[in-house]
């Protein structure tokens, strides 16, 4: 029964007729077991955080067990209130929303011009954008921080939002998608008197929902997880995001291990929900983006 499905197998190297050899039979079972182990390794740490954060600090220090002695949700709400996580969540929400809007509009517009309109000189811009892929973003963080301070944009969400509007990888994703759209729609809209910008809003955007969804998901996870620039720009203000708060545990002496654990749990709940809802689009987007990009 286990082997029956191999009749229809068309991917990979093992085929149904290979199973006449007992070694191959054993190997397929071993591969299945290996996959289960990989799955456990992948998801266990996240599950552990939630289990361990039900322990109180005394239990956490003393007992060497994985499971907590009880599941009391009031411990969670207590930490949530003590650390004032509502505010960090709201701040993160503001940061993520603005980032997604910027990511779609600015990268989308650039990709539209480079992929569809192709004005004189677009190749130079595209080359510069492609070279940006090679510039490691973290090496420019010092200079970027200095520049942001010089023009007085620190202590504001604005640089975080706008930074998401200059992502070479997303430009490439958008461009490839826009180039695959049928040219007839664009020509028809032009004959109807639409200008370039209207074509983008009325024709390109509605046709590009799948790629917008992929970039949105990427931007949400990137903006939610980003902490270095948010830390440098927002630390010490009332605009600190969840990740900035998490990073500050590094130097905070008052916090206990279970507080840190619960804060980690709070920080991984939203991306996990997003992932649970959109896992199909996410895993597809990775495969497609990787092949073409």
């Amino acid at each position, binding site marked *: 029964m286990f082997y029956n499905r191999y009749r229809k197998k068309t991917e990979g190297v093992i085929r149904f007729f290979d199973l006449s050899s007992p070694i191959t039979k054993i190997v397929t079972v071993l591969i299945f077991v290996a996959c289960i182990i990989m799955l456990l390794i992948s998801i266990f740490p996240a599950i552990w955080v939630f289990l361990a954060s039900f322990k109180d600090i005394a239990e956490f220090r003393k007992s060497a067990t994985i499971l907590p002695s009880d599941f009391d949700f009031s411990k969670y709400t207590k930490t949530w209130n003590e650390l004032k996580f509502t505010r960090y969540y709201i701040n993160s929400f503001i940061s993520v929303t603005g980032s997604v809007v910027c990511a779609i509009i600015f990268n989308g517009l*650039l990709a539209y011009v480079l992929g569809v309109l192709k004005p004189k000189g677009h190749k130079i811009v595209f080359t510069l954008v492609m070279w940006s892929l*090679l510039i490691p973003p973290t090496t420019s963080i010092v200079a*970027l921080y200095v520049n942001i301070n010089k023009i007085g944009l620190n202590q504001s969400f604005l640089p975080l939002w706008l930074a998401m509007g200059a992502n070479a990888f997303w430009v490439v994703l958008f461009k490839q998608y826009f180039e695959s759209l049928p040219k007839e729609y664009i020509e028809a809209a032009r004959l109807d008197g639409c*200008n370039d910008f209207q074509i983008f809003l009325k024709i390109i955007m509605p046709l590009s929902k799948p790629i917008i969804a992929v970039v949105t998901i990427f931007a949400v996870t990137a903006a939610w997880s980003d902490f270095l620039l948010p830390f440098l720009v927002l630390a010490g203000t009332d605009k600190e995001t969840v990740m900035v708060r998490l990073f500050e545990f590094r130097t905070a002496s008052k916090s206990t291990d279970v507080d840190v*654990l619960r804060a980690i749990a709070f920080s991984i709940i939203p991306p996990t929900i997003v992932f649970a809802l959109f896992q199909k689009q996410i895993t597809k987007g990775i495969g497609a983006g990787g092949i073409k990009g």
Partner: protein
Amino acid sequence: MQQKGGDGLFKNNSSKKITLFKKNISAWMIMLPSILLFAFFVWAPLFENIRLSLYDAQGIRTIKFVGFENYIRVFSHPSFWPAFRNTFYYIFWSLLLGFWIPIIIASLITETLYFKGLFRVGVYFPNILPGLASVMLWGFFFRPGKTGVLNILLDKIGIEPFTWLTTPGWTIPLIVLTLTWKAAGSTALIYMAAISNINQDLYEAATIDGASPFKRFLHIMLPSILSLGKTLLILQIIAVFQILYEPLVMTNGGPNNASISIMQLVYKYAFQDYNYPMAAALSVLICIVLVALTLLYFKVTKNVDDAN
């Protein structure tokens, strides 16, 4: 006839030129904001880094031009050579673990027929966790003493607790393992997409020639993975140079600089010592190395293709 045609062409051309000009202007206007963003967030920092690295500064205000003095200061800084040496360790371990683990994951999941979707989603899951959260999380796993999660698990199978990150020789491999745990799933998905694009006739032909499944893997599947892996390899090395918050959060570069990364040193210069010019100088050096590596890589892969 010919004359007329030429005339028409000329007229068309000039009116075309005007519309073409208008078209170009409107297109450039549309992408101008995005270009400005790229200029501010990506290109300007590059030049600002170079400028800053040649000056003495007080905070963010540059005072006077000092030439390459900051670079000399970087080279003579006591933490520079440990960080420089560690970079090679990081690269070595990430080539050993970070490169092969996704290939193994992709090959194994391709060969299984049950819960395939669940496995794909499962191995990708660590990718969506915030990097900082996952690093802090693994800190609890690697904790020495009997409350460290891995030590609890070891205890269950009767093995003595281990010191993990506080053992100098183990620090970098464990940090790379954490990185790989997080990133491998996404690379594996890319490989799996490539595997499903392999022409089925190849397997059939190999089977008729009497190739065993393992040989088919070695001669058909693996080469197609590796041809894609070549391009991912350089991205991986670039990523290794940017390792920053893993050692910063997990070990703070210790024990005794055993895991300090070159980017972490930039962070230390800039945001702990507030010596921005030195941080900029080191950033410039890293950038030069990465661009050189990239060019070298292009040359090497081109030569390989030519030889084929």
